[in-house]
């Protein structure tokens, strides 16, 4: 279990992370969510041991990351946002080098198994510099995985990938997450989190603004965005605005309207009000995006 207690990190006068506390039970997949500069990378680097905290503690099963860096790092695999590649090396040599540094006993065996695992076998003899971004990302995953760690920390694993590569990496990571590993994944793309994570920790300006299972968050927190399209939009805007709980109504093109509501389900009222105007489409699914916007805006206000 990873336990983060009152973690703070200050760079001079700037505070990157402030009094952050959370726990990740063994085997859970947790998503770190937040806008750029929220402190996601800083927190992950501290857990992975490449950055020291100003205050607070991070422990893995009771072992402190700063006090027993060797033991803890052996059990953590970390993929930074920019994969830490030596681009002048061949893929196979690089993975072997990583295996040696991570303290693996059977270096060649572990390297070969990892290369197969992450799908690098066809390019194992090539120089990393000559590979596509997708393969480079795989090299980064290989480096994090070669010592078969219990904990995987993945910082923006999908950034800069094209849609096809994105799907490939996502499938790979999903597989890895299912092998009873504790995974912390950061992203600002909500779909990725919804697809993989059981729980989210939402950060904004270095502070935690919400955490919990996605299903629970959607129930308790945040309004929702309702999109509808009608035949005769004239007059409907005023009717909708009058419904209690509606915060904002934005008309779109060709009879589409989107409205944002307060926490609580008022879909029925909205639908009833829209039917006389010739309701064609209605969608009121609450997404993580809504919660995210709600929480981060709340924190700013």
């Amino acid at each position, binding site marked *: 279990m990873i336990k983060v207690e009152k973690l703070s990190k200050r*760079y001079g006068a700037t505070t990157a992370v402030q009094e952050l506390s959370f726990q990740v039970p063994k085997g859970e997949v947790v998503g770190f969510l937040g806008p750029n500069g929220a402190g996601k990378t800083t927190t992950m680097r501290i857990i*992975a*041991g*490449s*950055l*020291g905290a100003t205050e607070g503690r991070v422990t893995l099963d009771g072992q402190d990351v700063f006090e027993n*860096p*060797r*033991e803890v*790092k*052996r059990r*953590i695999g*970390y993929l*930074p946002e*920019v*994969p*830490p*590649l*030596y*681009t*002048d*090396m061949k893929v196979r040599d690089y993975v072997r*080098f*990583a295996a*040696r*540094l*991570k*303290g693996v006993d059977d270096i060649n065996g572990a390297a070969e198994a990892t290369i197969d695992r992450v799908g690098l076998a066809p390019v194992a003899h090539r120089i990393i510099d000559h590979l596509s971004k997708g393969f480079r990302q795989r090299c980064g995953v290989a*480096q994090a995985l070669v010592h078969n760690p219990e904990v995987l920390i993945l910082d923006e694993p999908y950034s800069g990938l094209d849609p096809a590569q994105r799907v490939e990496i996502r499938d790979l990571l999903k597989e890895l997450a299912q092998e009873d590993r504790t995974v912390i994944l950061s992203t600002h793309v909500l779909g990725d989190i919804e697809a993989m994570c059981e729980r989210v920790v939402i950060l904004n300006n270095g502070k935690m603004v919400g955490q919990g299972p996605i299903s629970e968050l959607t129930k308790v927190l945040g309004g929702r965005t309702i999109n509808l399209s009608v035949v005769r939009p004239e007059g409907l805007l005023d009717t909708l605005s009058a419904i209690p709980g509606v915060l904002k109504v934005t008309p779109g093109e060709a009879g589409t309207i989107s409205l944002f509501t307060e926490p609580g389900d008022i879909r029925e009222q909205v639908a009833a009000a829209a039917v006389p105007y010739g309701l064609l489409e209605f969608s009121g699914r609450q997404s993580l995006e809504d919660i995210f916007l709600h929480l981060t805006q709340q924190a700013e206000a």
Partner: protein
Amino acid sequence: MGNILAIAKRELRNYFATPVGWLSLCGYILLTGFFFTIFLGFYSEQAATMGFDPYGPAEMNVDEYLVSPFFGNANIILLFLCPALTMRLFSEDRKAKSLELLLTSPISTAEIVLGKYLGALSFVLVLFLGTLHYPTLLFWMGDPDPGIMASCYLSWTMMTACFMAVGLMASSFTENQMVAMILAFGILLMFWLLGWAEGSLGSTGFQGSLKDVLSFVSLVNRTEDMQKGLIHTKDLVYFGSFVAFFLFVTHQRVEAYRWR
């Protein structure tokens, strides 16, 4: 120890994976060849003139007039070469973010620093292998003292060990390789010029004391005796402490990456 060797091996291979290594090797052999030819020409000219001098020695000492001056003057190549070889060690790693692999691996900062240092140093030892044809020629054609020759190579190694430690430290302070090189070169040049300054000072009074200080600090002056075949323990201790000091500063600097 395994980790140090793994990092050293990677650094050494990096030199040969890029043109840097091969260019340095060619440049180094070319320049030492230039120096060797000059001193050889000078030596044979002197020897020929001396043959006509009835009061002169029967033959010119090859160690004194060829080996020592050659090794002593070729020092200057290392002054330019070492900063260029060390500038990327930490700078490039930080800029490309690959240092993160080392920092998140279960290895100590000392292992990282020593690994990079030994890797870079061993590359220069490979360069020295490229100069072995000069002694081979001399042994074939003449009768130089093998002890002095070995001592000369030791002086190069010591000097390089010091230069590389300074270069490694400079590289740990910046992500910009150019800045790292200029910084290292500046520091080394200062140590180099101290030796010159010492030579121009008088030996009494304040000048005398200053001279003593400078001659203690100067790096190059300590190689002079070694290139005549004299290995003083105090010089070895000096080189050792010099390297240890700069590696220590580097170590502290790399530790600080985790705290910034």
